[in-house]
């Protein structure tokens, strides 16, 4: 279908969303109490230094002009220096972002795989034992916050059973593979280092599982609901009436239309997992963006906060575009509608 114009249109929309977001970020950063120049040079610097910095940072200019200076720097990837790490914020983002992405992607694999499987089983055995079990479990999954699972898994599988490591991304005695993608598992595979790969994978399991529980439950519920609704549709009855085998009807004619709402939810869950992982990252000492962002907020590290919010905004936009493309590919009604409105 007309994929490129679709992406182009969405990217064009994204520009405005990001501009809006940047204005909000900028205003919040400037409205927060405290003089950025004073914060930058420290409490003991003499006043003339602060004044110098103030001019350097264009803080004497009107707010609108300040915004454009800020935007220009941001577009060049310059978000200033972090007060916490004393490094370029952009540098920090490049380091912490892949860790969060790897975690969120792994959680996505777990939640989508298990969620769809459980939801399908539940719909096939509607109102039977399997269905009731899945429903009870998914209620529990939806209402329990991920940090509870994180602590539970940490205690049970980490400290009690010693099945999985509980701290960081790699054991201390394992050599870190050279950074290429920033994904520990991919980098170790690229380096051909199977020891590091298994170690990285083991480190991923518990935090990803804790993060995946909530979305998995949600996705199971949505899949079950849309499947049991579609099960009574005429087109399923018709496929059966034509003598098509039950496995074909279920695995193809029922599954595809039923997955469309699930995929929308998976996208939202993924983006949410990305930004809401801070407690899980904290508990498992995962050097990710969420934890970095939370530390920045606690220490009023404005430059870091701005950059983290902007990165999360971009993640949300990209995930939404991917979801829309996937859904349009699966459902011709949606695909055509958007093509017609062009």
């Amino acid at each position, binding site marked *: 279908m007309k994929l490129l114009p679709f992406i182009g249109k969405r990217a064009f929309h994204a520009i405005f969303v990001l501009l809006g977001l940047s204005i909000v970020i900028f205003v919040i950063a400037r409205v927060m109490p405290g003089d950025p120049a004073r914060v930058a040079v420290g409490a003991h610097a003499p006043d003339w230094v602060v004044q110098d910095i103030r001019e350097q940072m264009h803080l004497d200019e009107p707010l609108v002009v300040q915004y454009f200076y800020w935007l220009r720097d941001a577009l060049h990837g310059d978000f200033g220096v972090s007060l916490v790490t004393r490094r370029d914020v952009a540098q920090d983002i490049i380091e912490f972002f892949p860790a969060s992405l790897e975690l969120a992607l792994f959680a996505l694999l777990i939640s989508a795989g298990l969620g769809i499987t459980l939801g399908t089983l539940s719909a096939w055995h509607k*109102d039977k034992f399997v269905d009731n079990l899945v429903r009870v479990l998914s209620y529990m999954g939806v209402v329990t916050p991920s940090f509870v699972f994180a602590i539970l898994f940490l205690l049970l599988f980490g400290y009690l059973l010693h099945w999985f490591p509980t701290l960081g991304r790699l054991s201390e005695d394992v050599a870190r593979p050279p950074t290429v993608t920033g994904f520990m598992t991919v980098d170790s595979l690229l380096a051909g280092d199977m020891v590091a790969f298994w170690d990285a994978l083991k480190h991923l399991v518990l935090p990803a599982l804790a993060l995946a529980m909530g979305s998995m439950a949600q996705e199971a519920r949505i899949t079950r609901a849309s499947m049991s609704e579609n099960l009574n549709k005429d087109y399923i009855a018709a496929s059966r*009436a034509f*003598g098509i085998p039950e496995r074909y009807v279920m695995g193809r004619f029922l599954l595809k239309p039923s997955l469309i709402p699930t995929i929308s939810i998976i996208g939202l869950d993924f983006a949410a997992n990305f930004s809401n992982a801070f407690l899980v990252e904290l508990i498992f000492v995962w050097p990710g963006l969420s934890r970095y962002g939370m530390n920045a907020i606690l220490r009023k590290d404005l430059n870091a906060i701005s950059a983290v919010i902007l990165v999360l905004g971009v993640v949300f936009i990209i995930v939404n575009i991917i979801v829309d493309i996937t859904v349009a590919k699966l459902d*011709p009604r949606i695909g055509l509608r958007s093509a017609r409105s062009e």
Partner: protein
Amino acid sequence: MTRQPLLEIENLRVGFKVYGGELHVLDGVDFVVNKGEKVGLVGETGCGKTTTMKAILRILPQPPGFIESGVIRFHGRDLMQVKDREMRHIRGQGISMIFQDPTAALNPVFTIGQQLEPVIKYASPENRRLPRKVIRQKAIQALRDVSLADPERLLKAYPVQLSGGMRQRVCIGMALATNPELLIADEPGTSLDVTIQDQVLRLLHQLVEERDSSVILITHTLGIVRQMTDRLYVMYAGNMVETAPTRRIFTNPLHPYTQGLMDAVPKLTGGGVAHGIPGRIPDYLHPPTGCRFHPRCPHAMDICRQKKPSFYTVEEAHQVACFLYDTSSGADSAPARKEALA
């Protein structure tokens, strides 16, 4: 003409479990279709026509539906005892169905080809071994049979891209692609405008004549019944109330309900607005005792409230389920019968 029964239904009772109780929809349906016969089935919306047909094909959603009792025989075999595997072979080649609403009967997220080709492929064990190209050829032929232009392109189209008339033609093509011995046509064309409806029905008529299939035609339109069927069944609230050769039922309806139904047809000559039957179809949660039509019947007698009438043969091939025609019950009903027949 030797009358060999192809499909026989005896005393079929089907209920639906709902919140607050059980709906007793089918109340002992008796129904016969002979080989090569075109049978019409008329009755108000909600009287159980589609439910009966879905029960034949075993595509009734269960739950909430359930079969309380009865026998459905196809070629003398009890379909309710047949294993799922065998039932699959009876569907398609034995019995196939055209659904009421072609938009609902086509899967919105698969192309026509993706839906039609498996119908042909799974029609018989021989077809399963056919190469894809041959199946595609057969699919193209099936679309050509229903006078659809450019079938090659149509195979790649989604239902949403077709007009209502084209969708119904596709549905007819799908139902006939397996060359069924018995075709169930459930109000084909109801959702189409009158001109298109006429075209579609003419086409259907011609196709079943060519193939000499047996047909059950469900419709609200009595004019269509008169043109297309040899024999007619009249259904009321889950019971067959009358059956006779189509011509005869139009000239000499016997059951008070049939009389009302014929009366309700607006005529071009004679003038005046049609009368209709006062009252409405009963509540299936608490259906009337005895004959289900008695609350609306102008000739209701005491016995009608107590006992359910069975089919009485009035003339050859003309049967009616009404105590007015019970010759054995003696004097008390005779005057009423005379009055009704007058």
